[in-house]
């Protein structure tokens, strides 16, 4: 019994690893369609990652060990987060560790190492990107925590699987507070994953970039891991969103069979979320970097409003 549980867990992580670049490709494809461009293949991110793994890594002469191990740490934390988030099942061995606050901490660890590595070589762009990332991060994190607190107050627990099960199984109720926090969460997702209103993932224009600026010095397998980790991060955020706001269809049983039943539903949710994300990105314009705090303050406002509305209207 124990072995089969772990086997299920491994399967779940592998599925997340395989699905993350596909989700990213799907978002890109939707964006291309919406802006009347011919879309890249769904396999494009896989090809990119494969190509990078075949290349020889080039390191700056003054790169320290931190620069070299950072991709592994970032990738590792993202894999761990994927294992912990109840994306397919809530009764897996790892999901019992899915305390929401710990999860936010885990994501913050990845950010710290990414920023440190970006500053390590000492180029102007890396430092600039790291600073901007930190600016976005310190504003997005409280908003994310507030979002999680609202769900925690409703379900009186901070364990993500318990929240998901509670929301999925109770009778349908209207939660204005959850609607507010869903908006806040979407804004945090856009900011944290370097999507359009805050950062443009498709450009290398140095004055506007945040995430790309931090990866400029990386090449080959390091870059491949970083990009895979970025795709995984987007996937993880989408799954956190599903766990909080669209919990229906997650399997609460054990074993690989129960998990398989929830896969088509997750795929459907991801397809819809990807389309929605592409729509938001197509409709909005990139903000000036100095307007990003305003954007994130609005996200924080939405989350706190959700909290206040919940406290007042609980009745």
């Amino acid at each position, binding site marked *: 019994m124990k072995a089969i549980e772990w086997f299920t867990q491994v399967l779940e992580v592998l599925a997340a690893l395989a699905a993350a670049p596909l989700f990213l490709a799907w978002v890109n494809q939707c964006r291309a369609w919406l802006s009347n461009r011919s879309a890249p293949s769904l396999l494009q991110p896989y090809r990119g990652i494969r190509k990078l793994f075949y290349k020889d890594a080039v390191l700056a002469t003054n790169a320290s060990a931190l620069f070299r191990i950072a991709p592994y740490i970032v990738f590792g934390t993202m894999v761990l987060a994927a294992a912990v988030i109840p994306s397919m099942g809530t009764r897996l061995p790892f999901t019992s560790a899915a305390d929401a606050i710990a999860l936010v901490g885990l994501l913050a660890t990845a950010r710290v190492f990414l920023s440190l590595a970006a500053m390590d070589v000492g180029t102007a762009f890396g430092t600039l990107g790291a600073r901007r990332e930190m600016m976005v991060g310190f504003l997005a994190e409280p908003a994310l925590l507030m979002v999680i607190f609202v769900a925690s107050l409703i379900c009186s627990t901070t364990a993500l699987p318990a929240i998901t099960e509670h929301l999925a199984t109770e009778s349908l109720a*209207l939660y*204005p*507070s959850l609607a507010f926090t869903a908006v806040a969460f979407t804004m945090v997702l856009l900011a944290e994953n370097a999507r359009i209103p805050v950062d443009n993932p498709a450009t290398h224009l140095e004055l506007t970039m945040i995430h790309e600026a931090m990866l400029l010095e990386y090449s080959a397998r390091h870059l491949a891991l970083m990009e895979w980790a970025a795709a995984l991060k987007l996937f993880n955020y989408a799954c956190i969103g599903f766990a909080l706001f669209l919990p229906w269809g997650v399997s609460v049983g054990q074993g690989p069979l129960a998990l398989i039943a929830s896969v088509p539903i997750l795929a459907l949710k991801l397809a819809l979320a990807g389309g929605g994300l592409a729509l938001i990105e197509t409709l909005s314009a990139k903000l000036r970097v100095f307007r990003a705090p305003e954007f994130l*303050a*609005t996200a924080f406002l939405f989350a706190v*409003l959700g909290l*206040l509305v919940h406290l*007042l209207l*609980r009745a």
Partner: protein
Amino acid sequence: MHALSLQMLDALAALLLLLSFAMLSQRRIVTLVNLLALQGGVLCAATLLLAWRTHEGHLYLSAALTLALKVIVLPRLLHRLIHRLDVYWDTEPMLNIAGTMLVGLVIVVFAFGLAQPITALASTATRSAIGIAVAVVLLAFLTMITRRKAMSQVVGFLSMENGLFFGAMSATYGMPMIVELGVALDVLVAMLVLGVFFFQIREQFDNLDLHNFESLREDK
């Protein structure tokens, strides 16, 4: 069924609060007026729902009044004024948007605290929304404080009236009909008088910036 209608009322109350914040952050006057009309629409929907729930006939009447006045007539009037005065932007708010938002949050907390005793005394099913009504009133007040242009101050004033109306509705299922009619008429007349004022102000100072009023000297 009743539980669901109560939840929907709560959701509408929350939407009202959200619209107040949207108005607080909005820089364009045209959008501000549209938001005001939307707020009136939400208010109308809430009134209708409450009327259906409580079977109070006069609430239907006040819902109709809200629809006619706050969704159709007043926004129309305002739009016409905007076009004729040619003011589309409220250029500089006194405080930056993020700061205003944070002050707004503090105000909401304050309003919820303020409404606690009233909520404890009220016996209506919608009493939990009283706090939101107070918050809407105070946020509209904040909108008025942070704007310089006369136009957006008037919009803030009208939004304040929305909040008062919602408060009366959730505390006592609406004011007596005669009071409601009186208030509605007052608002309409105030709007007309203010429209005349706008033209006078612009004739005097060439713009609608209320900053001009701070110096009361004869020499311009």
